């Protein structure tokens, strides 16, 4: 396990605090993620594709997909915010669909195709969504950004696939790309720096270019 730096911890606290209304009202219990080290960990082999590359791992069953990516494959672009499904920092694509990598076990993904922020684009070859986030200042500290970008790429695909949302007025009509739709569909990604309006602008630009 890595020892997170002080900055890392304060950021995490903030993200968790902001997500508190989704779990509990006011039971500030951050002392979790206990690990039982005494019991012999039971392991399982798993093989999946990460960013187009076949990876074979033998993992302690307890390893989340997030920890497999970060600690075992050293793909640290995907971030750990809350580790409880409340912030979206860990969003990756599994077979093209966005999921919270912190709430799924790595061994449950045998044969799956996983895409992380590193696979979407590289510094000299940015994905259009990455470029749009840079152009529109869609971040400040950047901690939520890999999750925001993975999420928004999959989100536009969901609209294209005509998956409705909570704010879709007519369930039988095709889905539209509006700021209200983008906001609702991106609500699973919390930004503690509050870069939301610029994030919506970045996504809107990419959506417009695509349409």
């Amino acid at each position, binding site marked *: 396990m890595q020892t997170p730096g002080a900055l890392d911890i304060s950021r995490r606290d903030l993200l968790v605090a902001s997500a508190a209304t989704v*779990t509990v009202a006011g039971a500030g*219990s951050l002392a979790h993620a206990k690990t039982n080290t005494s019991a012999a960990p039971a392991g*399982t082999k798993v093989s999946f594709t990460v960013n187009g590359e076949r990876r074979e791992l033998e993992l302690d*069953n307890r390893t989340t997909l997030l920890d497999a990516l970060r600690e075992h494959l050293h793909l640290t672009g995907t971030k750990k915010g809350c580790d409880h*499904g409340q912030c979206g920092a860990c969003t990756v694509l599994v077979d093209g669909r*966005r*999921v919270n990598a912190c709430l799924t076990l790595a061994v449950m993904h*045998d044969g799956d195709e996983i895409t992380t922020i590193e696979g979407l684009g590289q510094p000299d070859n940015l994905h259009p969504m990455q470029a749009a986030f840079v152009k529109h200042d869609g971040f400040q500290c950047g901690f939520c950004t890999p999750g925001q970008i993975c999420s928004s790429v999959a989100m536009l695909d969901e609209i294209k696939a005509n*998956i409705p949302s909570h704010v879709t007025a007519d369930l039988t009509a095709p889905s539209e790309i509006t700021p209200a739709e983008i906001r609702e569909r991106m609500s*699973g990604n919390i930004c503690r720096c509050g870069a939301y309006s610029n994030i919506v602008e970045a996504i809107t630009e990419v959506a417009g270019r695509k349409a």
Partner: protein
Amino acid sequence: MRAFSYQRASSIEEAAKAAVGTEGAKFIAGGTNLLDLMKLEIETPTHLIDVNGLGLDRVEPTPEGGLRIGALVRNTDLAADERIRRDYALLSRALLAGASAQLRNRATTAGNLLQRTRCPYFYDTNQPCNKRQPGSGCAALAGFSRQLAVVGVSDACIASHPSDMAVAMRVLDAAVETVRADGTRRSIPIAELHRLPGDTPHIEHVLERSELITAVVLPKPLGGKQIYRKVRDRASYAFALVSIGAVVQPDGTGRVAIGGIAPKPWREEAVDNELANGAKAAAAKLLANARPTEQNAFKLTLVERTLSAVLAEARG
């Protein structure tokens, strides 16, 4: 997290047998609730049976004119299904009001029904909680109970059931199909799936330990105006304080179930007859036996007002 062994089940029989044969075994579907609780060691299974490979991921028509929803159909896929959107809009709406897109992409039909309470003291292992540790007491009674239940509660537990989907299923009178380790199958009306806490709040439903949910069956469509309205502390990605699922017919008759106020989706068939008399009468009947705390008594007013808004929308 405690160590556990892991098995990918490839048939329903294999899954049910493994569950009965291994003390401490649990099924894992989307994992979005179970893993969350395992990290906190609130759930401590010794063996996980992964049921994602069982092929229970289809929505099929039934001979009765309804739909059979496989237990592993993801919340996203169910909400987006053309037939659900057209004929059971209430269910689509309830699903889309829950969690986030990422979570709905993993969350399954069966897992959603069996998700556990979000009571803050159930989550805080330093606090007494009869549900987590039978006999230890209930910290919520004198604590933060804003999110918790006002009806169906007991002196031992006032936890609310957090599912939005279950509220819609209750309005639609869905049935839960299961298979047990000996191969026998049964169909449980959704009204009978969840148990009230009484003095055993740790027992939350009527399923046996090894009983696998295979499908949830919807009767034929009800028509009418279908509405799901959720009131919460923020506009998205938050659990309900109060939610209302309703089907209202042109003549003003209908059905209603309430979420966020009870240990299970709350519906009283007798109240349906009251709907034509307006929200005040219906809410009074629904909440006749309410036992709110000081912190959640506002829900009594909120139910009436939300119902009033729902009935107005249905008329409009």
